[in-house]
């Protein structure tokens, strides 16, 4: 009886797992097939003779530029976000001043707002300062819009740092800057790495800002770039599949290595809200 119950539970969990994973496996297989194979065969079949040419075709089509843009924009925005958020969180949680609660509240307000409500004014601002179709607009928007979540994740850790650490540093004659950069930042490494990963995922996947602010191909990131590609490969399913795999592979690889960090970050970013 107990065994039967367990089996049923496992079947339920297994079905959910199949539903979650199967479309991705299907994507990997059809990225290696020809149209004939995809259209005639059954969707569960593995590619008999993997068509790596599909990937070659996509790289020759110039996906490399989008890929590179995604990488550098993700990295630069993430570093800036985590640094700026760490500084702000430090001042809010460790320094003594009356308005710290208010400042925290203002930063946290950013969590609630729909970005579409700010999109037209943002576009107009960037237009006025000549930052439309300039990757700088993307980087500073990413930094700004990820600050609230980053501060939120850091906040919990910063409030637990023992006062004695700061006291010892100050008695030793260290300046606040030195204390922040050579003591606080290093001890916050574990939580910082969580925010780094969360930021990277957000930035890598962002779509609306790039789609709105960037028009030249040379500045587009993968999320918008793959739209062009797919438009141009209309009926070539293999090439479309390869494009999608290239765009999601870095995230999946990162997940294989950092799954615990990622799960921790996602949990932290949600529950405290």
């Amino acid at each position, binding site marked *: 009886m107990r065994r039967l119950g367990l089996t049923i539970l496992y079947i339920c969990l297994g079905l959910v797992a199949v539903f*979650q994973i199967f479309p991705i496996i299907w994507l990997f297989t059809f990225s290696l097939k020809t149209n004939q194979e995809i259209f005639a065969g059954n969707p569960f079949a593995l590619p008999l003779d993997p068509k790596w040419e599909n990937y070659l075709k996509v790289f020759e089509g110039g996906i490399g530029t989008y890929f590179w843009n995604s990488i550098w924009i993700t990295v630069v925005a993430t570093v800036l976000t985590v640094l700026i958020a760490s500084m702000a969180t430090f001042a809010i949680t460790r*320094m003594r001043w009356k308005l710290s609660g208010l400042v925290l509240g203002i930063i946290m307000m950013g969590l609630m707002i729909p970005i579409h409500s700010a999109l037209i004014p943002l576009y107009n601002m960037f237009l006025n300062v000549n930052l439309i179709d300039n990757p700088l607009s993307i980087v500073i928007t990413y930094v700004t819009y990820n600050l609230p979540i980053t501060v939120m994740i850091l906040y919990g850790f910063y409030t637990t740092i023992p006062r004695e650490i700061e006291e010892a540093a100050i008695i030793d004659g260290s300046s606040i800057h030195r204390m922040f950069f050579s003591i606080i930042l290093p001890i916050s490494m574990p939580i910082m790495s969580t925010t780094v990963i969360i930021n990277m995922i957000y930035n890598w996947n962002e779509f609306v800002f790039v789609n709105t602010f960037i028009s030249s191909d040379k500045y587009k990131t993968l999320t918008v770039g793959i*739209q062009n590609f797919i438009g141009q490969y209309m009926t070539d399913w293999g090439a479309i599949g390869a494009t999608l795999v290239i765009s999601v592979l870095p995230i999946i690889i990162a997940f294989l290595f950092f799954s615990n960090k990622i799960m921790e970050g996602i949990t932290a970013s949600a529950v405290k809200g």
Partner: protein
Amino acid sequence: MNIMNKVMSNKWIIFLYTLPAILLIAVLILIPLFLSGYFGLMKWDGIGAMEFIGLDNYIVALQDAKFWQSAKHSFLLAIFSGLSLIGYLAVALILASKLKGTNLLRKIYLIPMLLSSVAIAQLWIKVYNPSNGMLNSILMSLGVDNPPAWLADNDLVLFAIFVPIIWQYAGFYILIYYAALKNIPESLIEAAKIDGASPLQIAMKIKIPLVMNVFKVTIVLSFVGSLKYFDLIYVMTGGGPNGASEVMASYMYKLAFSSYDFGYGSAIGFLLLIITLIVTIVVRRATANNEEIQY
């Protein structure tokens, strides 16, 4: 300790450390929100001069059938999303009940959440492809003669879009519930077992009440999140066919960046903000509780 107090309340340092964050958030989030309301008072194509027309845009919006339709779709998605949370909680309850292999399962569940909405949308466009997609291939091999053209069908499209939304977020909510369930002290559950409670009773009487706080937070998250849905829908259907899957954000985006009606688009964007804030407050109130759980 005086020196400590003095150093740690150095105004200049506080200013320096918070300035970048405050400045960015003020300039790129708060001011644009106010400007959105202000631009909503204008007749404006985004390039030429603005012409002040008072509340006209807002009045037009309130009589705009397309806007109400998109709002209805947004709220339908929000309600669906809210209801689907019950399913995620059920899965998390099974997952957290000391089975083996759950760590791997949680990871598998989470993978779709990490992919970009654009990639998810493109993948599901293929899944739903009427003649060669995964879904209809399966249906046809099961003997269904005329499977529907999911994304081109006025009546089915919203439902068809909701499936990848579930697909994307299921792992996220399951993960959150799982973490909350694992926080329940083992001793409580052991005590109930000794008293002869069945697994179902333990789930209903102990586990669910104890994760209720987290559940309420996720109701707010999913409800408010749904009102902002954009990427996936914009890429999958562009709001079509005939507006059958238009949501508030996609309607606003089209007005601004396809029709260049920046004034009206801003008004819709501002209404989106107001609606989101009201809903946030209402849902928070409705799910608020004053009990603090202490173990």
